């Protein structure tokens, strides 16, 4: 998306230009001089002759404001140039020759922060004399630390980048690097800060003038005009309002231009671009019977409307699941597994469109609003995420977090919830659960944290547990423990489990049924043992081969699926896997293969594998670990 400056910035730039022009040409403009008394009747309001009215001595306020702009803008320009002139070389030097200067800069920074700058400015101007030169120098010098910090920061971020490092390694001379590589890149932040610095200096000069410590009367300054106007506030408010409004607009304009310039270069901008909700056209779903099962997902789709096109993250996935069963969803990263889970739970970002149906015991969850979904989410569907490090709130105790669903959904008292939490933590194998309640997540190991998130997911005795890569972030020895725990809990609580993983060997031992996903679609499904023993789709076969096995010889070459997952916004014609498939033929590039009609073990492939490759292997390891 191209970034645009926007209308407001041009308006702001126009205002700055206008004020600047007026200040330059003040002597030629058709109004009374700023010090001409009785140019009109004293304290008269705005009129054709005096657009901003007159002050207590009958002086033209417009004229005084325009002449005041000379001081404000003059001091602003001078101080910014002074700050830039001194601060930029120092900043570049500090950023480029980092080690020696870092300590110095930190120390100076500390002192500068504790040093009362305003007192310093006041004292210097008061003692040395309130005139244009002194005000300009003081404000310029006070701005130097900010300039050094800014330029140093900008230089640092470029001095570490590849092209500069490359130039250094190639032996390019420092001066050349500075001029050719760094300076052009520092220029934009510097320009942006020049505008913001103008705003800061104009306000600072105004403050000094307000206290009577800037250019002295009869020369008008904005701050001085506002200070004078205060005394007439009761009878002639326009005298104080006119300079106030002009000053406000000018400072606003400088800030606006500076801010937009900065935004042009800032790639980290979060959430500042307005997010437009897409037209929520529900995706069509063919009619289908509602079956008598715990969880039935029909033709579920999740699409994202992006500037690059429609991303079909989940595209027509269906499955059913009964109590006491485990369904595994496998596929490589980006195949839509996690998005499928979030889609079932209705936890999608605002920019997505969902289609299809999700039935829980025959009730269509896709027809539920957020408020109706909450009791379902809390009590009937449990969720465990991949990374236990980020799944727990870092600032709340384990106890608070485990007790929360119990208190909110089951309306337990604090005491009841506490007792229940202790029992839950014990049931997931956490030693000393009473003490655990008072701990914070960062005090726990990854495996312990995942046990806690499982305890939380199970707290309201859900019917279905969704486990999205529950062991991927854990180390191998812990993985088996956690999976065994999930398996045991499934049996104890008679739940259904949806287990998502990219690792086929993990789910092989624990799943009853498997769905293999690629590019948002189901490409193969069937009973777990069957799919592992006889994968038909070449993609499934590659997934099986990509999983490292304990039986592999040492220094065995790790097999990976060649190529990259397809761009979901621009899927290739034909089979989405054809570009990476070693068995692809011409037909694969032209026609997308449908999921075959075989109810037992369907697959989407024109040239399926005979499916015997991994049989021996998986059967032995599977049986082996199950027995352990």
């Amino acid at each position: 998306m191209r970034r645009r400056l926007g209308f407001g910035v041009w308006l702001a730039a126009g205002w700055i230009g206008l004020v600047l022009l007026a200040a330059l040409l003040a002597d030629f403009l058709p109004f009374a001089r700023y010090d001409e008394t009785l140019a009109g009747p004293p304290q008269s309001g705005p009129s054709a002759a005096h657009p901003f009215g007159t002050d207590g001595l009958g002086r033209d306020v417009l004229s005084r404001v325009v002449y005041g702009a000379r001081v404000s803008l003059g001091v602003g320009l001078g101080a910014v140039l002074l700050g830039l002139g001194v601060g930029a070389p120092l900043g570049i030097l500090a950023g480029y020759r980092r080690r020696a200067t870092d300590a110095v800069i930190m120390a100076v920074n500390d002192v500068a922060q504790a040093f009362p700058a305003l007192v310093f400015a006041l004292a210097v101007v008061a003692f040395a004399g309130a005139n244009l030169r002194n005000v300009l120098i003081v404000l310029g010098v006070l701005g130097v630390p900010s300039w050094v910090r800014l330029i140093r920061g900008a230089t640092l971020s470029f001095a570490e980048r590849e092209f500069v490092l490359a130039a250094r390694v190639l032996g390019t001379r420092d001066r050349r690097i500075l001029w050719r590589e760094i300076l052009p890149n520092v220029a934009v932040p510097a320009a942006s800060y020049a505008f913001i610095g103008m705003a800061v200096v104009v306000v600072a000069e105004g403050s000094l003038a307000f206290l009577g410590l800037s250019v002295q009367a009869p020369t008008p300054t904005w701050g001085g005009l506002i200070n004078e106007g205060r005394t007439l506030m009761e009878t002639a408010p326009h005298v104080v309002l006119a300079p106030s409004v002009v000053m406000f607009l000018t400072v606003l304009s400088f800030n606006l231009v500076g801010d937009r310039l900065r935004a042009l270069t800032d790639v980290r901008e979060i959430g500042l671009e307005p997010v437009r909700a897409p037209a929520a056209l529900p995706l069509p779903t063919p009619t289908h019977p509602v079956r008598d099962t715990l969880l039935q997902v029909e033709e579920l789709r999740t699409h994202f409307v992006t500037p690059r096109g429609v991303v079909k993250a989940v595209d027509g996935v269906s499955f059913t699941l009964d109590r006491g069963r485990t369904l595994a969803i496998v596929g490589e990263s980006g195949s839509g597994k996690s998005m499928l889970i979030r889609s079932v739970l209705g936890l999608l970002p605002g920019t997505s469109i969902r289609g299809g149906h999700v039935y829980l015991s025959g009730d269509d969850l896709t027809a539920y609003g957020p408020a109706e979904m909450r009791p379902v989410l809390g009590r009937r569907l449990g969720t465990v995420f991949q990374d236990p490090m980020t799944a727990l709130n870092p600032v709340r105790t384990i106890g608070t977090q485990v007790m929360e669903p119990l208190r909110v959904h089951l309306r337990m008292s604090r005491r009841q919830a506490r007792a229940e939490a202790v029992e839950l933590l014990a049931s997931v194998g956490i030693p000393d659960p009473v003490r655990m309640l008072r701990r914070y997540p960062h005090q726990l190991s990854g495996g312990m944290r995942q046990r806690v998130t499982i305890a939380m997911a199970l707290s309201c005795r859900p019917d279905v547990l969704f486990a999205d890569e529950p062991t991927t972030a854990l180390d191998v020895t812990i993985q088996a423990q956690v999976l065994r725990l999930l398996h045991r809990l499934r049996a104890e609580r008679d739940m259904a489990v949806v287990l998502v993983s990219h690792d086929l060997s993990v789910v092989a031992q624990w799943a009853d049924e498997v769905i293999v996903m690629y590019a948002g679609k189901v490409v193969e499904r069937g009973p777990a043992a069957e799919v592992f023993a006889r994968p038909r789709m070449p993609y499934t076969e590659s997934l099986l081969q990509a999983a490292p096995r304990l039986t592999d010889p040492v220094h065995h070459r790790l097999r990976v699926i060649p190529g990259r997952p397809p761009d979901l916004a621009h899927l290739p014609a034909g089979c989405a896997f054809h570009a990476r498939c070693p068995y692809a033929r011409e037909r694969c590039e032209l026609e997308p293969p449908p999921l075959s009609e075989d109810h037992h073990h369907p697959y989407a492939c024109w040239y399926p594998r005979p499916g015997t490759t991994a049989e021996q292997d998986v059967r032995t390891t599977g049986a082996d670990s199950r027995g352990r």
Partner: protein
Amino acid sequence: MIVLHRLARLLVVLVVVTFLSFVLLNLLPGDPVTQILGLSATEESRARLRQELGLDQPLLVRYLDWLGGLAGGDFGTSYITRMPVGAELAERLPVTLELLVAAQIVALGLAVPVGVAAARRAGRALDQALTALSFALLSTPVFVLGVLLILLFAVTWRVVPATGWTSLSVDLGWNLTSVVLPAVTLGCGQFAVYARLLRTDLIATLQEDYITLARARGLSPRRILWRHALRPSAITLITAVGLNLGALIGGTVIIETLFGLPGVGRLIVDSIFSRDYLTVQGGVVLISVGYVVVNFAVDLVYAAVDPRIRRA
């Protein structure tokens, strides 16, 4: 150990700052002797007064002398008023502190609900309105805002007095009416900064896994925002409040002038005008100590807000 290290570092900062300001103030043209005796005084009487005030000593000796006194809690005696500087500061400090606290209450009282509401609906109308408003407030010099508020509330509607100060010990009601307008003036600009900071951090926090999981547990958006997301998002805000408080102890001079409040800022400015070095110097100490104290307080608050920062 870390605490001691930090304390030592801040003490060094304190010494450097006071030394710099001491030297600067004395290097600047202007002389308390002239200020007291006038331009027509004889050289003899000038020399006598100089000796009496200790101004005949070298700069470094005077500084060390003063620093020694400060260590014992003695801020010195004003050259001009011949009053102890410490007593003068103690009299003015409560006014400035009350103003600061009231301003922070105004700023945070507005910023937290507005920031949370804007983050919750990022990019929507309220959020955009906040962006525009905060931009406008940030571009309004404090004396311009103050003048406008006085014009509206004191001159046009006459709900509060325009200027003047009633001490808290005299009358609570009058005290509150005299602090409300200055506090709102000072608080508005900070409200804008705080609300923006909180909004940005909250938007980042709301992307976290633990927030999605909280939604997956069927918790209400309100509960998630206030109980789950607010605290982890508050660190930057706390830093900003701390820095502000530190910076403002000497930075309220404009407000105090505009509203006629007898605070520390006003005292410093008046002392600058009358070349009352030691009183200015006392003000500088107050500001630097304020910075140090606030820095410490902020560290303590960090630990209270985020358990990861607590030491095991």
